[in-house]
């Protein structure tokens, strides 16, 4: 990157380090930090939406809907994450391709399973085989978001389901006594009050989600942990201008600091949110706020 980086072997330590930390390969780890942030920024609200749908259908009075909600919560929570991320994503990708295949190539007579191979017609591939690499990467990224959202949505659904039941029953009964419909009770009384009960569980989930991002590499998205391992591994002079020993410890130390800072900031923000949510609530913390005021 810098003009003096032509012959790294002749540089003194500081200049060598400056050149080393700005190689194209290091740029990849810096961008992967943003990949992680982007993933979290999209996944968290999506997972929450999945959770909300799951929880509200689980407590639905319409039996089949309630079964679907409960089955979603039970199955996804029970399957180990790594199995989910290894096989579910490939299956999901194949499902999308199969649907496109059925629509776009109705004349296709061969089976889509040929021995071990999953073969769909060329125009049904997702993304198309000749699409540029960034399309493939974006598609992989969205598959990752969807998988994360489904997994964490199930946990969030369970938290929200519990939170909905924690809202005092007499509040709901009072609302009904005032003549509110079931829908009105749900949206005006239950939902606004449940968050205070849900937040501790949701904040746990958020912390776990932050630390689950290395699972991204299973999905072909290169995240910071992958790059730390790749960059930190011992390098011999034959294959790089910057040979060094096993530096994984330093890279992982940097990751440790990154994750600690990130979770600390999250904690501070979540505390603020909690403070707002408890305001005026019929809980211990809400009561304390009222007395202090």
């Amino acid at each position, binding site marked *: 990157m810098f003009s003096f980086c032509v012959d790294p072997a002749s540089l003194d330590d500081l200049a060598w380090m400056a050149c080393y930390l700005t190689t194209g390969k290091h740029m990849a780890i810096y961008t992967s930090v943003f990949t992680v942030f982007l993933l979290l920024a999209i996944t968290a609200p999506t997972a929450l939406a999945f959770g909300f749908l799951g929880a509200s259908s689980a407590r639905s009075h319409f039996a089949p809907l309630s079964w679907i909600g409960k089955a979603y919560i039970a199955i996804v929570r029970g399957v180990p994450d790594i199995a989910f991320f290894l096989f579910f994503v490939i299956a999901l990708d194949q499902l999308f391709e199969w649907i496109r295949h059925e629509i776009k190539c109705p004349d296709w007579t061969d089976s889509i399973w040929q021995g071990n191979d999953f073969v769909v017609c060329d125009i049904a591939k997702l993304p198309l085989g000749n699409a540029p690499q960034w399309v493939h990467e974006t598609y992989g990224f969205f598959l990752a978001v969807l998988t994360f959202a489904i997994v964490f949505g199930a946990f969030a659904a369970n938290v929200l389901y519990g939170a909905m039941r924690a809202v005092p029953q007499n509040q709901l009964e009072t609302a009904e006594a005032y003549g509110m419909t079931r829908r009105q009770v749900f949206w005006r009384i239950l939902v606004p009050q449940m968050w205070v009960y849900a937040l501790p569980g949701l904040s746990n989930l958020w912390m776990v989600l932050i630390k689950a991002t290395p699972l991204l590499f299973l999905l072909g998205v290169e995240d910071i942990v992958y790059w730390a391992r790749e960059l930190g591994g011992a390098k*011999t002079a034959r294959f*790089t201008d910057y040979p060094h020993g096993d530096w994984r410890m330093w890279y992982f130390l940097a990751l440790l600091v990154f994750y600690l800072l990130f979770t600390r900031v999250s904690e501070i923000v979540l505390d603020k949110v909690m403070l707002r949510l408890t305001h005026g609530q019929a809980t211990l913390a809400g009561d304390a706020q009222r007395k202090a005021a």
Partner: protein
Amino acid sequence: MKSILLGTAALAITASVAFAGSHSVVRMGTEGAYPPYNFINDAGEVDGFERELGDELCARAELTCEWVTNEWDSIIPNLVSGNYDTIIAGMSITAERDEVIDFTQNYTQPDPSSYLALDGTEVDFDGGVIAAQANTIQAAFIASSGATLVEFATPDETIAAVRNGEADAVLADDAYLRPIAEENADLVLLDRQELIGGGVGMGLRESDTELKDKFNAAIQSMKDDGSLNALLEKWEIGPGF
């Protein structure tokens, strides 16, 4: 959920607009962590013997190729489900793998596998602890010998295991271990070698015979005019043809 569905749909539509054709772009899947076969260079790009070989093969077969990296563990499932079209990742041709995927003819001679250990250690080949990368011919070999096998996801970790004493030695392709032994005074190659594997070939889907024929022809032409030998010599990978 809605935004995701919309996003996926939008992606699907943009993808469909592009021109479709049989293998107008061939996606080459590699690991990027096994020098000299394949590795990520300082610029962050795939480099190594197989990068040069693959680019030359694509030029000869008149294909447009694109390089993709994938973790070793899931490299075969992702090929089979069509996420890329070839595996070119120092993968030895074995009967077990051949049941799942197809191989082109080999582009390296069967390369002996060597043991790397800390200088001065006595390695017990029948009862000791030997490290190898998971899902490799070396791992299968150790598992069937008397020694205890410890597996790692990446080649790099197998070397680290020897360094920190977790394993007595590591078994891997000679071409991978040799530069490491040459540059580290504390690590040595042992005299004993194992002759396993049938050489390295490109992996393809079994249904993809057209592409296999193209690459087979290209490899044959590189064998015939000696350019493959020149590459093998440049990257110091085993004997030539």
